[in-house]
């Protein structure tokens, strides 16, 4: 059974079909890239899956811990609580809070954040906060931002913000990660670093779906690639299969990327 099953999603904005009968499924532990030209509907699909947009039709279901659940129409916070974490193309960090605070907010437990815990905080609450701190520090170290622990998020560089938004999603300890352009606009070294994280996460059995434009990055990382165009799934397969698919070359890659693929394979 797939861990995430998306069936026949459709969404129109003012009569224009942004997502049009889009279906795919993710198996547990897979790292899958979602590619396609600008306006293909990738982010819209993300927003529907994570509850930020209501779909006109279609169904999204998850299968975590052997329990199947339909999540179509659920509020975003409920979907997040079911173990699906996402990042945003424009990061959406808590800019006036510190790097550490950004991570402390990403906690699968919620009891310590109740109003009652403001005035009554027994040991169990303090224990949760201690665990959160430990996890936050672990992921700070994981993405290499330990030195920036107490800086405001708004004072980070673009690459550091990308890393922080990834760390924040990881702090939720999700089963499924949806990452919207995790490497867009980052320095090559940071990109390699992110590629390393993907490998580590894959070996931990996390399921990742990520939107990406860099074919080199995808070829190194992704088990499978889904190509979207004009709201529909154009094709699906391994990165090599996809890169050789004539429809993909025509719609998305063009000649330039065809050459760069050759460069890669040499």
């Amino acid at each position, binding site marked *: 059974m797939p861990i995430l099953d998306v069936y026949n999603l459709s969404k129109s904005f003012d009569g224009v079909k942004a997502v049009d009968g889009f279906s795919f499924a993710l198996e547990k532990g897979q790292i899958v890239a979602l590619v396609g030209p600008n306006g293909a509907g990738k982010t819209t699909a993300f927003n529907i899956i*994570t509850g*930020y947009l209501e779909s006109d039709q279609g169904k999204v279901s998850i299968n975590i811990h052997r329990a199947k659940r339909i999540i179509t129409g659920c*509020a*975003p*916070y*409920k979907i*997040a*609580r079911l173990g699906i*974490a*996402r990042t*945003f193309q424009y990061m*959406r*960090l*808590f*800019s*006036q*809070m510190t790097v550490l*605070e950004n991570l*402390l*907010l*990403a*906690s*699968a437990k*919620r009891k*310590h*954040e*109740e*109003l009652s*815990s*403001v*005035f009554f905080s027994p040991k169990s609450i303090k224990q949760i*906060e201690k665990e959160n701190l430990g996890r936050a520090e672990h992921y700070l170290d994981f993405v290499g931002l330990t030195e920036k622990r107490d800086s405001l998020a708004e004072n980070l560089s673009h690459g550091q913000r990308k890393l922080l938004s990834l760390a*924040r*999603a990881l702090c*939720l300890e999700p089963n499924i990660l949806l990452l919207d352009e995790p490497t867009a606009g980052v320095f090559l070294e940071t990109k390699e670093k992110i590629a390393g994280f993907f490998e580590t996460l894959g070996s931990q059995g996390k399921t990742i779906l990520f939107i990406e434009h860099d074919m080199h990055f995808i070829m190194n990382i992704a088990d499978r690639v889904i190509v979207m165009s004009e709201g529909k799934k154009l094709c699906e397969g391994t990165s090599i299969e996809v890169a050789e698919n004539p429809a993909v070359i025509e719609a998305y890659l063009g000649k330039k990327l065809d050459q760069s693929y050759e460069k890669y394979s040499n």
Partner: protein
Amino acid sequence: MEYLFHIFIIAGIYYILALSLNLIVGYTGLPSLGHAAFYCIGAYTSSLLALRFGVSPWIGLLAGAIFAAVLGLLIGAPSLRLKGDYLALATFGFGVIVYQIALNWVSFTRGPMGLPGIPGYSLFGFDLSQLWVFLILVVILSIACFFIINRIVNSPFGRVLRAVRDDEIAAKSLGKDTIKYKLLVFVIGAFFAGIAGSLYAHYITFIDPSSFTVMESVAILLMVIFGGMASLSGSLVGAVVLIFVPEILRFIGLPSSIAAQVRQMLYGAILVAFMLWRPQGIFGKYRFK
């Protein structure tokens, strides 16, 4: 000296109002222009209970706060789905509605004639309406409010509030039920404003709707902005300075007939100046986006 006590009592009451509004605006980022509505409900609830049913002002204090909190829930539930400017306008509208009810429901509130003869506080038979005694009461209550709100904003609950302020969409992606948090904050803020209203009514002993206009909400908001958003000590400075400055106008010999208008103009000028040159206020860490 008596006069100075009076000014400090008023400043103390406004400190409670500014603190509670700061929780809503400064920490959670919800622009509210209706805070005087909660202040009004607190004042009228405990005054009417005392005048009509002879209820003790102490119970009135609690009842006023609870009624204000209930109103906070009623106003918050529909309007907190709105964002930014729209929320500000909705709260502004509710502020006008509450004021108009106080003004026009004459059989209940006596409308513009106001409610005279509101009894003062007493404790075990001692009359607390002497100025210096009342000042101590106000100081104790405002310190208590400070400690409670300070504890709220520095807790994990308060951290979620700041997350909602910085980016509500991101907060949702981390599993936070942001509507619930916004509603709770609105209710807590209204509760404390209700306390301030009840204190004011039993101190002044006469209330009429003119104390609870939308201009009053703007004045409280100005105290928050002046002192600094998301700064509790800033709110103290904001309340004290903005209560004291208009009093100075009196000493420079301004006739009392135009003093009120000049006070409002002065507030307007301060608001414009701060928005232009120091939008985060004196001690603020956060500014309007």
